[in-house]
């Protein structure tokens, strides 16, 4: 076996995921929030693939592909929503898109 140990991949994955969460929570632009979600998905993908490689099993690879498919579908729908929101509200500040409440 060659290459860096599994831990490194997992740490990188965790760091990327945490960055995604932080971005999701603290950024205001909807586009950035959307990108943070993609970041989290890819962080998870990374750990899937790392485990798959380590355990010599194909399941992780398959799962990574599923996640990509979902991410692509989500991008299509999500970007359409963002476009519509911008058309109607003329803003991408998430704090101003808060009319769905009690």
């Amino acid at each position: 076996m060659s290459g860096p140990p599994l831990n490194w991949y997992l740490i990188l994955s965790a760091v990327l995921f945490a960055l995604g969460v932080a971005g999701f929570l603290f950024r205001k632009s909807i586009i950035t929030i959307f990108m943070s979600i993609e970041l989290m998905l890819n962080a998870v993908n990374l750990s899937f693939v790392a485990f798959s490689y380590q355990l010599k099993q194909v399941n992780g690879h398959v799962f990574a592909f599923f996640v990509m498919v979902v991410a692509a579908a989500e991008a299509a729908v999500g970007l359409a929503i963002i476009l519509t929101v911008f058309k109607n509200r003329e803003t991408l500040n998430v704090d101003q898109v808060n009319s769905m409440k009690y």
Partner: protein
Amino acid sequence: MHRLWLISALPFAGFLINGIFGRRFSKGVVNAIAIGSVLLSFVWALKTVLGLGEDRIFEHYFNWIVAGGLQVGCDFAVDRLTAVMLLVVTGVGSLIHIYSIGYMAHEGGYYRFFAYMNLFMFFMLTLVLAANYLLLFVGWEGVGLCSYLLIGFWFHKKSATDAGNKAFIVNRIGDFGFSLAMLMIVVSFGTLDFGRVFQAAATKPEAVLATIAMLLLVGACGKSAQFPLYVWLPDAMEGPTPVSALIHAATMVTAGVYMVARSFPIYLRAPAALEMVAYMGLFTAAFAATIGLAQNDIKKVFAYSTVSQLGYMFLGAGTGAFSAGIYHLMTHAFFKALLFLGAGSVIHALSGEQDMRNMGGLRKKIPVTFWTLMMAAISISGVPPFAGFFSKDAILVAAYQHAPWMYWVGTITAGLTAFYVFRAMFLTFFGEYRGHEHPHESPKVITIPLAVLAVLSVVGGFIRIPVWLEKIFPTAEAPENFSLVAISVAAGLIGIGIAYIMYIAKPGLADSVSSSLGGLYRLVYNKYFVDEIYDAAVVKPLVSGSRVVLWRGVDAGLIDGAVNGVGSTSQGLGGWLKLFQSGNIRSYATWVLFGSIILLLTLGLIGAVR
């Protein structure tokens, strides 16, 4: 086939026709249907009784209830006891129906009145013909219903509807006893059929029979207006006078006496209960007679008189002289129906006046009513050879054989009876007229029934009921005791004499006597305050208990409180939970984050434990 069902079905047909279509009929058609059906029923009853031998006629129509071992059939039977009741009910009933044509001529709801009267006849005849306790109970409740409907006939009058309610509710107490008695009969005998119950009565323990007999007595006590459940009968006089005569004097109220006499095999084996019947009857007879002394409403006087005379019948039954009780039932039906119908004729003549203080001197103005009413008054006073003499005498002699003191109380009561009836007669027909109306004699349709009943009140005593019923009620041959008879007759005559002195010879005497008695007079005048006592002891606690505990406590407090509590609790909880729905995406995300952290921690902890 005797087709006994025709006897009760005919009035029922009259009820259906008049009740459904009567509104569109003219009075003549209503009369023809109502009176025709009752008369036909009388004819059929007469034909049945004439064809009656020593044995009873029994007819089974269909099985009404079959439940496990219990079988209740729709059965009618006629024996000699039933025969007496049948003829009294249909005969007196026919006369009162005819009388009603005249009495109710100017009243609204004419067809309704006759429909109810026919319905009453149907239920009363079912009661009398029934061959088991349950069918008897059907008639029993049915006559109670008709009594309620007819007391409250003038339903726009609050006092009338109140009196109807009172009659119905007080009777519930008695009916409760009757129902319990029937349940006990089913449990211990396994049947409700008269024949089989009475046959098996000899084999049952006395305690069971005594309990059944006492419970039956409670039922009889309610229906026949005996102390302490008599309070509904005087109020029942709010109904039209023919109703008072038919239901509350001649027929329905005697149903209790009939039921006790019918159940005599049970009573004979439960001497304690039979003794109770005698005590209750005697006490009621004396008690009600004293109240009758001081009443001013002519119908109230006769109402208390009815209660008192029913007490006599129970005294007769209770001392073992069932046939004497039935004898008095029959003669009482004649003279008391006459007293009420006569009183109705007086009221009719005075356009609705019932207070005797506003009457007087009517002897010349309405002579037919006066003379017929006089026959009834003499008859109830027990003057020989009028009808009342024979039956009252039979009861008093039986009472003497049972216990002499009962005879003496009964005799004094007979004196009181004569006094209050003649007091009513003298106040109504003698002296100076004190009212303002212009009295007029009633039409023939009223006076002819009066005349027929007057004849029956005079000669009815010669229908020897004890002889007719000898096979059913084997009574010991009573020795002819001339002195006993003489004393009771003398008591009646003395009563009449005192009434004469107080109200005719010395008109001022009555007032001075009543004022000198003071408190005692007020006690009697106010009917011993029994209504007030019941009101304070039963009605008020029940009403206030219902209001405070059931309404304010259980209904408003518990039930409404629970429903409103569920509503307001979920509203409050929702008001707090809705704050989570802020519309702010980042707060949602924060909650998701917290949630997943807690989930991970929990899973980790469980994993650590494992």
